């Protein structure tokens, strides 16, 4: 099992366009579905309100880490669903957007790491919410047993 999430996606747009989409706070807000209070500044907290339907009560809080033009944008954020969670007190994970030139335009590699920092409670909560856990596991066992009587 991996302790990080990694996604690679090719975007049919020049690297400069993708860089703007991920680092201009208004553009970021459009696709990420968050209304941000102001621009991203390395070392500073970014605040806002999630606009994704059903999650509007959740505040966005992240600490911008790196902004290397057209190469790397990264921030840390927390995973608490408590409305009064504080980014400085919660354990965080690191989110990195890396950009490279690709034939079609831009190759974006997204990684999120540091899940070992998260407390049990958060994992447990999502585990209960997410029907995938034990129910799925039981089905796997059933299927396995059925195949090999």
């Amino acid at each position, binding site marked *: 099992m991996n302790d990080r999430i990694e*996604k690679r996606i090719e975007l049919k747009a020049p690297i400069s366009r993708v860089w703007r989409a991920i680092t201009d706070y208004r*553009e970021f807000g459009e696709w990420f579905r968050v209304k941000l209070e102001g621009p991203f500044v390395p070392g500073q907290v970014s605040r806002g309100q999630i606009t994704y339907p059903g999650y509007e009560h959740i505040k966005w809080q992240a600490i911008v880490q790196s902004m290397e033009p057209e190469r790397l944008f990264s921030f840390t954020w927390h995973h608490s669903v408590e409305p009064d969670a504080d980014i400085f007190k919660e354990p965080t994970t690191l989110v990195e957007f890396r950009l490279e030139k690709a034939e079609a335009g831009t190759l974006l590699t997204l990684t999120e790491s540091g899940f*070992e920092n998260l407390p049990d409670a958060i*994992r447990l909560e*999502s585990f209960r919410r997410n029907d995938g856990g*034990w129910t799925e596991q039981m089905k796997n066992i059933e299927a396995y047993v059925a195949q090999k009587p």
Partner: protein
Amino acid sequence: MSRRNPDRKTAARRGQAPVFAALGDETRLSLLSKLSSGQPRSISELTHGSRLTRQAITKHLRVLQRAKIVRCSRSGRESLFEFNPQPIEELRSYLDLVSEQWDQTLTRLKSFVEN
């Protein structure tokens, strides 16, 4: 898998089960594979066939126990160790959830920059 070993004090202060740290070790993984059948085993059984001493195996079992991946019960004078898959399942389930959310978010980014 992370090879980093967060120090024990930090992990204890946060009150977390350091599942990744517990899994990032060959000996502990091999102990888990011995326990994965579901059958509770004693330290002697787990030490059998290993080059490690009983003390070393005990130390590794304690790490797994702290991460709640292994449960310990007593049978007479013996301690029996048993595999508990729940913390690993929780972690996998959470990573799946976050992973799925990123897929959706990146799909929105894709249409945002391509249109």
